[in-house]
């Protein structure tokens, strides 16, 4: 019997979730947005998503193979985070994007942003965000133009304006919420689908309900303040652009958000404000830039906003100062 006994360090009983199960939960939460995106934008959207996911996963596998990992090992350790990255990145493109842009961004996101820094958990910025920003800067002409309004809307066709941000307040809120007749990326138009994913993640306890709410509210309120307390822009500012996608799925990425409770509170409020400020400053879609910027500040948040141990006293602090 001695031979079969196993030993481990305490605790011997652990929660059932794993990194892989969390990533699969995120994928499930992204399903509604992906499906709606494919319905709105047609088979081309599906192609973009598939291409993005496949190239992201392929990049990771090739990278690991190049690091002398056996194929068996790779499959055993595969945690689906590259699928999430690929899908998120795909959702950030519009359906008319050229195929090589998708592939190159996915390769950049996984190889440069994630794997070069050490793989899952070690990346400094969110790979999907970095991939999107890479595409935006490297292929500006393709990314800025070519936004498609879903084909069943009255005014179907290609528009050059990015998102309805340029016409803040002129769209109907319900249309914005459902993404009907809204030009934009595959994943960001239908807020209802994103909200569904949010509810799923919160119910599965993968995501703390507070963080997206804080970001979105902060963004809305700052916009209202800057527009001279005009509360009519509140809802449109929330519902337009990639704010929902960014706030729910991108900014809340575990690796690139602060670790402790209060650091997170401050981080997400600041993030919302930064999005609002950048939106006022420019006409392009800024959510990804704002998240990228804030990602770089995460170590500072981690270092300076930390919880106080249970039973922490001021007297101890004075003692330490000596």
């Amino acid at each position: 019997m001695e031979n079969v006994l196993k030993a481990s360090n305490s605790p011997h009983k652990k929660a059932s979730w794993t990194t892989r199960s969390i990533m699969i939960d995120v994928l499930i939460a992204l399903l509604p947005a992906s499906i709606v995106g494919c319905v709105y934008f047609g088979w081309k959207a599906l192609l973009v998503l598939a291409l993005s996911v496949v190239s992201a996963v392929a990049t990771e596998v090739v990278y690991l193979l190049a690091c002398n990992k056996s194929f068996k090992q790779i499959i055993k350790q595969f945690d689906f985070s590259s699928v999430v990255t690929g899908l998120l990145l795909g959702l950030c493109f519009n359906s008319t994007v050229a195929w090589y842009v998708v592939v190159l961004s996915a390769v950049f996101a996984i190889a440069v942003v994630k794997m070069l820094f050490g793989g899952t958990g070690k990346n400094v910025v969110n790979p999907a965000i970095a991939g999107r920003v890479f595409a935006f800067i490297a292929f500006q002409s393709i990314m800025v133009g070519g936004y498609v309004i879903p084909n069943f809307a009255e005014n179907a066709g290609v528009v050059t304006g990015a998102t309805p941000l340029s016409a803040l307040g002129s769209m109907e809120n319900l249309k914005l919420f459902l993404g009907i007749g809204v030009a934009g990326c595959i994943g960001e138009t239908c807020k209802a689908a994103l909200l569904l994913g949010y509810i799923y993640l919160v119910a599965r306890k993968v995501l703390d309900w507070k963080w997206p709410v804080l970001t979105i509210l902060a963004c809305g309120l700052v916009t209202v303040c800057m527009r001279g307390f005009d509360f009519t822009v509140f809802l449109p500012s929330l519902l337009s652009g990639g704010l929902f996608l960014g706030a729910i799925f991108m900014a809340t990425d575990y690796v690139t958000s602060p670790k402790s409770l209060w650091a997170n509170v401050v981080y997400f409020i600041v993030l919302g404000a930064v999005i609002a400020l950048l939106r006022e400053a420019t006409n392009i879609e800024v959510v990804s830039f704002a998240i990228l910027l804030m990602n770089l500040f995460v170590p500072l948040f981690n270092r300076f906003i930390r919880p106080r141990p249970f039973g922490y006293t001021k007297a101890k602090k004075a003692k330490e100062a000596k």
Partner: protein
Amino acid sequence: MKALNGKFFRRGIHTNDMKNLAKNCAIEELPASATVDLSLSQHIGKPAVPVVAVGDQVKMGQLIAEADGFVSSRIFASVSGTVAAIGPKRDERGALATFITIKNDGEYSFMPLEGEVDKTDADSLKKRIGQAGIVGLGGAAFPTAVKVSPKTPVDTLIINGAECEPYLTCDYRLMVEKTEEVVTGIRYLKTALGVDKVIVGIEKNKPDCIALFESYDDLTVVKLKERYPMGGEKQLIYCATGKKVPCGKLPSDVGCVVQNIATAYAVYEAVDKNKALYERVLTVSGSAVNERKNLLVKNGTAYKDIIAYCGGAKEDLAMIVDGGPMMGYSVVSDEFVTKKATSGILLLNQKEVSLEEPTPCISCGMCAQVCPMHLMPMDIDFYTIAGDYESADKLGGVTNCIECGACAYICPSKRAIVQNVVIAKAKLRQMKK
């Protein structure tokens, strides 16, 4: 007295407590084995010094090793018979300790503790507690005689009936079956400490115990929420009294002393029955054991004898745990023996234990969310692996850690956080020297 509602400490985890497995098994006495091995370091502090030699005849309850200094405890023979060997052996945690082996002669001739106790005199009671070799039976095995002689004045005695570890039901059975005896023991502890206020903290998953203890007017019963680690000393004090024990301080600094239910029962036996601490109630549970039981076991009984009495292990046995699943030790063999503080022996199958390989930390922050001491376990983990123990303390707060394992329980990456905590603490102690 009507039970009060306890405060609730922030964070911690909620687990499936699995207590139903052994909850309704009445305490049975385990027939003593042919030989018992008694370790000389069954407690925190210096190992005891043997006072018997090989070949000596000893009686059940006879002193075989004297305490060495203040923070140490006496060891008593748990069966009558001949001392067969005194020598070093590995204990269940892998440490080298001296064991006294006694061959059982099957007569169980009992030797009571010497002297009389004045049940109303604090010093007399304290002397008896030390004389009987009583240690904290909740798991830490800190000598109770030291605990009842605090350096600062105390006003509250808190009895820990939380039993927050999953699976374990030995304290529950004691509370249900030996209520009167436990309460008597609590009163002796109260007299020894000279305090007026006694609080018994019981988790809400034991409503029958709460009802039983409510009938005693000199006890204040506090209903505690089911949350792990409710039985942690600092958490229990906070929930029972609202006081926070400052970092690096002892419970007696806020005027509290915490004692376990089983300890109170041992005090009762020592005072009323003149019986030294050489046996205790422990839980045998888990999905891989045929019959789950709460057993009265003589110290130094081999696990295999206990398991054999419980109908043996099932085919799918994967791990034997000494203690609870959260803070217990997994043992590599069933040859090891019980100690004073062994509160349970769990036979767990593959499904119950977690043996996944750790994957990289994804900074989800769950560990910080559940840490009852409000620390940053992921930083402790990170800096300990990097060998930077000072940062593990400064940024992670490792010296405040109570090693409850809530962080490692919740970790989706299955990181060995508690192991790194223990390493960091040991290294920091070394560095201070």
